[in-house]
């Protein structure tokens, strides 16, 4: 128990350290971008007709605290970030935490749902692919999972959308119907949400599934030739029981470990799919923040949120692994 507690604490410290490191990278990159928040805001004001001088920009800089040294601003940013406070957006002048609000949770929820979908398909299919000796089945599974790689998500999204527009006259875009968009959460809204959300989950799950099938298949075919499997089958265990109790358990452990990186891959695809399906969650907000207004405060906050989600998942999977596998608990830093 004490060992487990120590493990958890050290992992938590490491996770926080990673987040700090990441925040430094993100913050620095946002600093490197030409122009700062004060300039952008005043440029926007000047386009509205007010006359802006260099002195105004300096005053605005002082007001936003941009004249402080780099390190000080970063430390301030990171402290606020851990409290969920990201200041105001450069252009919109709205509080970022409020602006993002439930959008971040929706995006993370959609991504997690596609991850679950991917693995609930990939684990059985991958095991079948690794164990079956049917060349036709093997090759067609291989082809399908390659298609998942080669047919990009955005193309799939586009095709499904256009197809349904032509066939059913319903474009399947968005996350909510018009009447529920601004309504408070209610039973009807949840039902409406579920009717819309399956498409992004499916599309994001598509290539994730392809990746997952390949991983499961590779891990499984590594494990299946090992001696302990032969020994078990010599003892008379056979069929599904043999697979589930021996090689599958070993093969699937590394997968738990890599869940965080799978989530990363889904996050990479999220903004693109969100753009096509016009989803109103953080992913498409990110594109809006970037493509239209060069809003570095907002962009930084979104990326920080996404990374925090990944670090969180990594931490959770570490804990789960430690709970199930005593070897992991002992190798604290290894």
């Amino acid at each position, binding site marked *: 128990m004490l060992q487990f507690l120590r493990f958890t604490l050290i992992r938590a410290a490491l996770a926080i350290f990673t987040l700090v490191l990441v925040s430094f*990278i993100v913050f620095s990159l946002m600093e490197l971008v030409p122009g700062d928040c004060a300039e952008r805001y005043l440029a926007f004001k000047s386009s509205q007709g007010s006359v802006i001088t260099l002195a105004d920009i300096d005053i605005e800089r002082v007001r936003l605290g941009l004249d402080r040294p780099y390190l000080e601003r970063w430390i301030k940013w990171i402290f606020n970030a851990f409290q969920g406070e990201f200041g105001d957006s450069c252009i919109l002048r709205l509080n970022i935490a409020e602006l993002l609000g439930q959008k971040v949770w929706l995006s993370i929820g959609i991504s997690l749902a596609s991850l679950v979908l991917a693995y609930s398909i990939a684990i059985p299919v991958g095991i079948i692919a690794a164990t079956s000796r049917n060349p036709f089945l093997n090759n067609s599974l291989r082809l399908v999972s390659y298609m998942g790689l080669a047919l990009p998500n955005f193309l799939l999204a586009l095709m499904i959308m256009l197809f349904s527009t032509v066939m059913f006259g319903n474009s399947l875009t968005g996350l909510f119907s018009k009447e529920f968009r601004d309504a408070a959460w209610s039973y009807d809204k949840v039902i409406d949400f579920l009717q819309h959300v399956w498409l992004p989950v499916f599309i994001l799950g598509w290539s994730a599934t392809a990746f997952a099938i390949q991983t499961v298949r590779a891990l499984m075919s590594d494990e299946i030739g090992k001696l302990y499997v032969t020994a078990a089958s010599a003892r008379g265990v056979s069929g599904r029981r043999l697979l589930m109790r021996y090689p599958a358990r070993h093969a699937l452990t590394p997968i738990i470990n890599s869940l965080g990186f799978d989530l990363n891959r889904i996050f990479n695809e999220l903004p*693109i799919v969100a753009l096509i399906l016009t989803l109103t969650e953080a992913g498409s907000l990110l594109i809006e923040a970037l493509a239209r207004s060069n809003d570095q405060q907002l962009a930084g906050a979104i*990326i920080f949120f996404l990374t925090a989600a990944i670090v969180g998942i990594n931490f959770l999977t570490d804990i789960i692994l430690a709970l199930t596998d005593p070897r992991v608990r002992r190798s604290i830093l290894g």
Partner: protein
Amino acid sequence: MTDTADKNFDANVDQKSKEAYFTAGQGQLIWTRFKKQRAAMIGALVLGMLIFSGLIAPFMTPYDPTIAGRDKAYLNGQPQVPKFWDENGFSARPFIYTYSRERSIKTNFRWITTIDRDARRYLTFLPKGDKYTFFGIKGETHLFGVDKGYVHLFGTDSTGKDIFSRTFYAINTSLAVGTIGVFIAFVMALMIGGVSGYYGGWVDSVLQMITDAVRTVPAIPLFMALAAFIPDTWSAEERFFFISMILGFIGWPTLARRVRTHLLTERNQEYVLAAQLCGASAGHVIRKHLLPSFTSYIIVDLIISFPYMVLSETALSFIGLGLKDPVNSLGVMLQNVTSADVLLNYQWYFIPVIFFITLVMAFVFVGDGLRDAADPYGDTKK
């Protein structure tokens, strides 16, 4: 007598093949194993053809892919399929029909394309056409063309640019972006992975922590953030190099990890110790002794990471933050298919998509085949 000769001969062959096996370099071994895989070989063939046709795009395609080479009289025109015969008789030289466009009171002021089946345009080979520079060589000869007017095998887009020409130039651009991206990723991976693997210990721990932190950041959103700040005034070339660099920075952590793992296992070998005892510096040992020991594995890794570069380029260009229209890349071509109008009326815009999918699939097949071939225990596993 003949019996012993045969035996001698057999032993000789056996000896020779054994010798060949033991003296073969890693590259040769990988190649031998690679040749046995049919799917990977087909992939390699397709890939080779695509890369080759991408390289010779200026010669292979009949027209300039930019606005300079547009066909004003054939906007959004459908593909023209060369024929050998029709109701007017047979021709040994393939031909297409003459298309003319008209908008008048008769057509209710809409553009109507009419096909004149009597006016044939014959395909010609190696005609003179738009000028191009090709690796510094100026040329104007193209692989094919027609004697009068234009030929559009894949149709034209809304400004009358030839989609056939654009597709092959796009393959060229996307491969170039991918190559630069892979190169940058590779150099960074070699340096970071090399140092971390060679020194081990705390240097390794610190570098691994940084690599893991970089790996945690979702790359596409982050680089979208950066790409959005590219000033509008940048030229197509500047954008091109910037995007390639971004792709390189996305790709290095995975490669660095592989290099590190290779080095960690190799650095305790005797030949490294021998070199160190001779007074070789760390850089010398890494470059001259360690890296050559797994060059072929690194090449395999590079090829595996290539399709992801191409995919990232298309993703970035697709959302309008990567390359933009005057440049032809596969991402730009894919961006063109996003409107409902295209699906309903101009399906030939999808032809580049087929090339894109084929290219990525070919890369994946070759990469997979190479990975299996590079695994020295691959034969025993199955």
